[in-house]
């Protein structure tokens, strides 16, 4: 057992802390990014690419640095700490990892180096209005084979960063009945394809989630990602990675909120004393600490299991996503409580984090969804 970062991870962490502190300078900037349609700046994007973050998980032959999931969560934690906006997650994890899992050699050669150099943005169009569930067997959007192409029809909802994605991976049913596990296929779709219409949703965290409508969108058969009808397992793997990466992001946010709130409790004076002297406030702080500590180890254990290729990774990713989602929510609420009225003001840092905590809770399976996975893994 060992609960320490490698030296490389420490360097990555420090570099990320430094870069992101400068790149995400203040609350006004976050609010601007939330209003802005793209939600990030080219300078920020290019800076991250230069640091090698886009290819962190890809092998060197595809322009990456061959990092592990543990490296990834180390970085994601810092991104969460800095409340980083933009399509990094969608591009690298939802797009890149899925291609890495299922892509042909040619597809990997075509997409991964471009992602790694920062010239391509991607996302994954998975959930749909009727269920909003991450369970791939519930997909109803259809793709029909017609000659050399598939034709995709239907609506995808809560697609992150579709507004800025150059390409997206679309999950659609090509065979089987509703709710069948088999028959889901994945497609690499050019966002500029005729028949695609996009609407940016207005969300609690001001992040960029979209409705994407596909009307007779033609996709060449060559753009099938993985075997036809076998998309379920690919999506499950991506979701596992995404859930754990999201945990790391939430954990970083949790740490930041705790840091801010504890610092405030030490300096804010009421009744002639720092409010951190009052036991009521101390115990709130202790609750933040307990929830956050558990978030750390469960997240890193899940990442470690993914790296080790252990079958228990499915259960632990779900355990982590359940725990960290609830923990971050709790920590954010306590953070607000400690800041009193001032944390309620829009220019304060607290709402940046508490709103993201909510978004994170629902991304890639909320606790109810994840507990169902745990139940399955327990043999229930």
């Amino acid at each position: 057992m060992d609960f320490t970062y490698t030296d490389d991870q420490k360097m990555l962490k420090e570099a990320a802390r430094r870069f992101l502190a400068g790149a995400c300078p203040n609350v006004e900037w976050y609010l601007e990014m939330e209003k802005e349609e793209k939600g990030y700046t080219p300078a920020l994007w290019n800076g991250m690419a230069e640091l090698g973050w886009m290819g962190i998980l890809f092998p060197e032959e595809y322009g990456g640095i061959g990092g592990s999931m543990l490296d990834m969560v180390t970085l994601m934690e810092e991104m969460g700490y800095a409340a980083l906006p933009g399509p990094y997650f969608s591009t690298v994890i939802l797009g890149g990892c899925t291609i890495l899992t299922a892509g042909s050699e040619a597809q990997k050669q075509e997409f991964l180096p471009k992602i790694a150099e920062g010239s391509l943005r991607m996302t994954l169009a998975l959930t749909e209005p009727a269920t909003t569930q991450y369970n791939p067997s519930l997909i109803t959007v259809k793709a029909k084979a017609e000659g050399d192409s598939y034709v995709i029809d239907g609506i995808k909802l809560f697609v992150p960063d579709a507004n800025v994605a150059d390409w997206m991976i679309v999950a659609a049913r090509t065979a089987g009945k509703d709710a069948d596990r088999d028959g889901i296929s994945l497609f690499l779709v050019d966002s500029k394809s005729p028949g695609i219409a996009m609407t940016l949703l207005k969300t609690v965290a001001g992040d960029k989630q979209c409705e994407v409508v596909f009307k007779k969108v033609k996709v060449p058969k060559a753009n099938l990602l993985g075997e036809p009808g076998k998309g379920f397992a690919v999506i499950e793997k991506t979701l596992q990675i995404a859930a754990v990466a999201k945990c790391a992001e939430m954990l970083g946010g949790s740490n930041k909120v705790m840091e801010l709130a504890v610092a405030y409790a030490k300096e804010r004076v009421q009744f002639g004393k720092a409010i951190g002297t009052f036991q009521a406030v101390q115990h709130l702080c202790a609750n933040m600490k307990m929830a956050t500590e558990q978030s750390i180890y469960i997240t890193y254990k899940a990442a470690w299991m993914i790296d080790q290729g252990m079958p228990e990774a499915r259960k632990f990713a779900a355990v982590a996503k359940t725990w960290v989602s609830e923990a971050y929510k709790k920590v954010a609420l306590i953070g607000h409580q400690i800041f009193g009225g001032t944390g309620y003001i829009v220019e304060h840092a607290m709402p940046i984090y508490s709103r993201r905590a909510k978004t994170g809770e629902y991304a890639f399976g909320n606790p109810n969804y994840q507990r169902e996975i745990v139940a399955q893994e327990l043999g229930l």
Partner: protein
Amino acid sequence: MAWDFGYTKEEEAYRQKVAAFLDKELTEEIARQNWEDLGLDKEGRAFGNKLWESGLLGWSWPVEYGGKGLSPVYDFILIDELGKRWSAHVPNDVAYTMVGHTILRRGNDAMKKEFIPRIVRGEIEFGLGYTEPEAGSDLANMKMTAIDQGDYYLVNGQKTFNTESHYSDYHWLAAKTDLKASPYKGISLFIVDQRAPGITIRPMITMSGERTNEVFYDDVKVPKNRLVGEVNKGFYYMMEALMSERNYVFTPSRYYPYLNMLVDYAKKTTYLGKPLAEDPMVRQKIAQIAVEIEATQLLSDHARWMEWNHQTMTCEPEITKVVVSEMEQRMVDNAMQLLDQYCQLEEGSKYAPLKGRIEWEFLHSFMTTIGAGTSEVGRTVIATRGLGLPRG
């Protein structure tokens, strides 16, 4: 150095040896003496002895006292494997997991030679003599006195909630040796023969049926050589040992049997013709129990890892303690909801499900947030020592 959540080959081999031994030797009767804190009976002592004879005790203890000189990780593995089989701790655990370590750290050579080998072999037990009527959370407020009489200390006063005293061989006693100094500098620790003349032990039966005791001292003579370490350093020794003690005592692994039992129950029990396991609410509740046990196990793994790597622990084991104890209460509540009306039935009653274990655990769970330090004091420790908030 790199994140790693597994055991080394050697550790894993030990774990498997222990597991194989326990699967064979640990009967339910022995386990329940342990999980119900009933105190070790004949079979319990025989079991402890077998554990030693089989070469599975003492790996983490110095070679000169009969151990293997290895890191505490081996004792933690032992405790976890016991926990996974309903046995909350090692037999004679106050000696093995608490008192022994302080003797090793602070006792003189003669004391170590006298006590450690027997502790390592699992032969002797101690009653923990800290709490008094006026000194619960506020231990420094203890009134019991041990007055230096030249050849011996003369001890008078009363302890309460001394759980093992009715069957233990020795009493691990904290008493005031300097009545004028601040309590932090006026308390000493002693090893007292639990059956010494002048000691009276009266049972206190708890709501879950386990026994704890009031222990009265009336002019008890304690030999000088039974003073632990230096005089008036007792409070410091107690505090010094606290974090490590929590690492040994608050073990989330002991909740896995409950989880497994509930999974099994949900699969085998039908409601309106369908297995409970198919009910989404049941699935959610059991899964939540699993989530909390896994997350809590990691708190424990982390805090223990700090200990065996000689890192300074500020509040990590305290976090485990508070979280584990509160988790136990939530777990019981969830479990009872699954059993519905049957949850009220105690062992031996007609219709009692799961041998009444959930009903017993419900009763037991009221003490987890109190014994060995309350959740309130724990949170204050986490806030002040862990987060550096000013003391109130």
